[in-house]
């Protein structure tokens, strides 16, 4: 080793190397630092033994404690499920039409339904359940198949025009134009009549002619006044809401070559409680029918404990 000498200016020993006259002072680490360093080495050894650490070809060493991040997530999910178990069990046994009598359960159902809606329904109905062309808006008070809790649940379980489910909502509008049941002129007349039902067009000679065609061909499902029929999911043609837009083009296109919406039978995909929660959520969006006011809650006692 080269000569270690004392640096005069600082009275500190040098490490003994020299490069072009540049020397390095041997200033030791502070002791607290050094011991923290040793302590972290000891800690690291324990950590490597206890937890997954060393990477292998397929996975890391498992660790003595058997901890995994997936396992931890699994535990957290189980805990959350256990926390919900009581509510879920109560919902399971509760017929949906009695749900409004239990505000606490109803709130839980709506909240759970909102979460399930975001996973399963937003793809077609949109994040705000406002629907789009061909996909009904669930916020309004216009229902194709019915808007009370029980009916919504039924629609959800069996779906709409869902093959393989014999209780599915099923109906088919004849393709009046494509199959030659009506002539193009008749279709235009019928369109005029349909648009006059909701006041979109003024009554005219065309709509007078269309009225006759309508009564002969359409009134079976849509009713003589075009009010629709929920048994067939036949839309109300006299209101402001249109599934496929309320323009002349869209209406005549629908008569000529109708489109039919399809919804999966969620009963086969989701558990009954989730379907119930979804029904409660959809019903709660502001257009739910057969609204039953919740019984008044006993508030003062609960408030007193909450304030403490």
């Amino acid at each position, binding site marked *: 080793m080269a000569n270690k000498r004392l640096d005069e200016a600082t009275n500190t020993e040098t490490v003994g190397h020299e490069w072009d006259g540049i020397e390095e002072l041997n200033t030791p680490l502070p002791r607290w630092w050094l011991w923290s360093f040793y302590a972290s080495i000891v800690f690291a050894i324990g950590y490597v033994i206890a937890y997954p650490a060393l990477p292998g070809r397929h996975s890391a060493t498992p660790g003595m404690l058997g901890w995994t991040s997936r396992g931890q997530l699994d535990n957290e999910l189980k805990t959350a499920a256990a926390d919900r178990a009581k509510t879920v069990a109560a919902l399971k046994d509760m017929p949906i039409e009695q749900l409004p009598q239990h505000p606490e359960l109803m709130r839980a159902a709506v909240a759970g339904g909102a979460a399930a809606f975001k996973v399963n329904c937003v793809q077609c109905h949109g994040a705000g359940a406002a629907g789009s062309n061909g996909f009904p808006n669930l916020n*309004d008070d216009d229902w194709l198949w019915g808007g009370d809790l029980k009916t919504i649940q039924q629609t959800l379980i069996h779906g709409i025009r869902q093959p393989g489910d014999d209780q599915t909502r099923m109906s088919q509008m004849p393709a009046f134009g494509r199959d030659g049941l009506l002539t193009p002129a008749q279709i235009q007349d019928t369109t005029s009549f349909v648009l006059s039902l909701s006041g979109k067009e003024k009554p005219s000679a065309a709509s007078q002619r269309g009225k006759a065609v309508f009564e002969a061909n359409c009134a079976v499902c849509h009713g003589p006044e075009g009010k629709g029929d929920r048994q067939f999911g036949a839309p109300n043609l006299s209101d402001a*809401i249109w599934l496929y837009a309320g323009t002349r083009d869209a209406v005549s296109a629908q008569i000529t070559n109708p489109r039919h919406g399809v919804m999966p039978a969620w009963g086969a995909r989701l558990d009954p409680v989730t379907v119930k929660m979804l029904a409660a959520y959809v019903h709660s969006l502001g257009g739910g029918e057969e609204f039953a006011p919740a019984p008044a809650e006993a508030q003062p006692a609960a*408030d*007193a404990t909450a304030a*403490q």
Partner: protein
Amino acid sequence: MNKPENLKPEDEPLGLYAKREPVFNRRIDGKFRRIKWAIMVICLAIYWITPWIRWDRGPYAPNQAVLIDLAHRRFYMFSIEIWPQEFYFVAGLLIMAGIGLFLVTSAVGRAWCGYACPQTVWTDVFQHVDRFFDGDRNARFRLYKAPWGPAKIARRLAKWSVYLAISFATGGAWIFYFADAPTLQHAFWTGTAPVVAYATTFVLTMTTFVLGGFMREQVCIYMCPWPRIQTAMLDEKSLLVTYKDWRGEPRGSVKKAEKNPGQFGDCIDCNQCVAVCPTGVDIRNGPTIGCITCALCIDACDRVMKETGRPRGLIDYATLEDAEREKAGEQPTRHLKLIWRPRTILYFSVWAGIGLALLFMLGTRIHTQLNVAKDRNPPYILMSDGSIRNAYALRLRNMEGRPRQMDISIEGLPGAAMWTEDMAREDASRTLTRMVPADETQSVRVYVVAPSDTASQKFEFKLQAVGDAREKDEADVKFDAPEGQ
């Protein structure tokens, strides 16, 4: 191990670290010591008793006079209740506390440091414990120098356990400000209190133990920013503990002075001022950052002056300006008169102004609030009859300790009506009445429906507490309608 062996101590470079010189302050009695006792007792009493004071607020609110209820986000102080959004009251109080420190410094120098600062108060308590166990200054010094043996270890352990008990009482009392004290006390001893209560107690016990028991004046000299700020604030008109060197110097013992009359000053160099100092400074070196102006040296010096038959006040409270004046043989200003200077008056008026503004706001604040958030997805809904519906999340805030009836109404938006989630649409109207529970915020989802020819526009929700015209609030919101309407 770090240094080569051929180095001698005197060769070592001047280090950046100075070892602490322990302080063994002597017992002293006098005017300022008695003030210090009184302030200590008052401060500790306030600290320990406050959480236990009860205050009846009726059935809907806790009955603890001073309570920072973090869990429910309420701050109670006697008849005042503050919600989180009114936190500016607390901010105002903190600003007042800050300006109050300036005010005190401007008026009476470092009086806060010397008498009321928790570090000073607890250091004082711990120094009394030292005296109780180990005796006065000399005995403590001897014990400090003595080698470690069973007797010393026993004494130290006994003393430290008393330190720890005091620290625990200090740290433990803190948590009672944050929860109902009797309940928390019971929970604490039965082991059912929240972990955070134990953790807080532990941390504050340890900080009291270390800061008060061992660090003491080092906190003032090295850690606390306030002495540094104060040194910048002090001027020639600030009241300081001053050694009147023109009167005291040159120092000489009584005997020397008797032998050589006229050659020595009043200071007999008895070192009593240093002996009683809780921070171990020598006041005769002039003002230093270590001097917290507790004035115990004044007590000590006055006693010596009395015994040697000299006038009191060789060490005394004086401003730099007065010191110069006195040196020149003029009369010093009276202390009370010192307070009336522009700086002090300015601080006082700012301080009092903030205080009055806070009191005014406190007296005129309204305990009713309305917040509205509009549903944006979807912005509007077309109903089957062609009318347009918007949804709003209303938050009705009842900040009083009793349930109140409140009217929500629509101002503007002709033809509109509203209903809530728990009502049928047939019952829609322009005014709804809700019972809002005591001291709570009630969320209400409101559907507002307007005729089909309504255009996008602004309107107002109004909240009015029934029976009190002053208790009202309103919120401007937008009503969205399809484009082209």
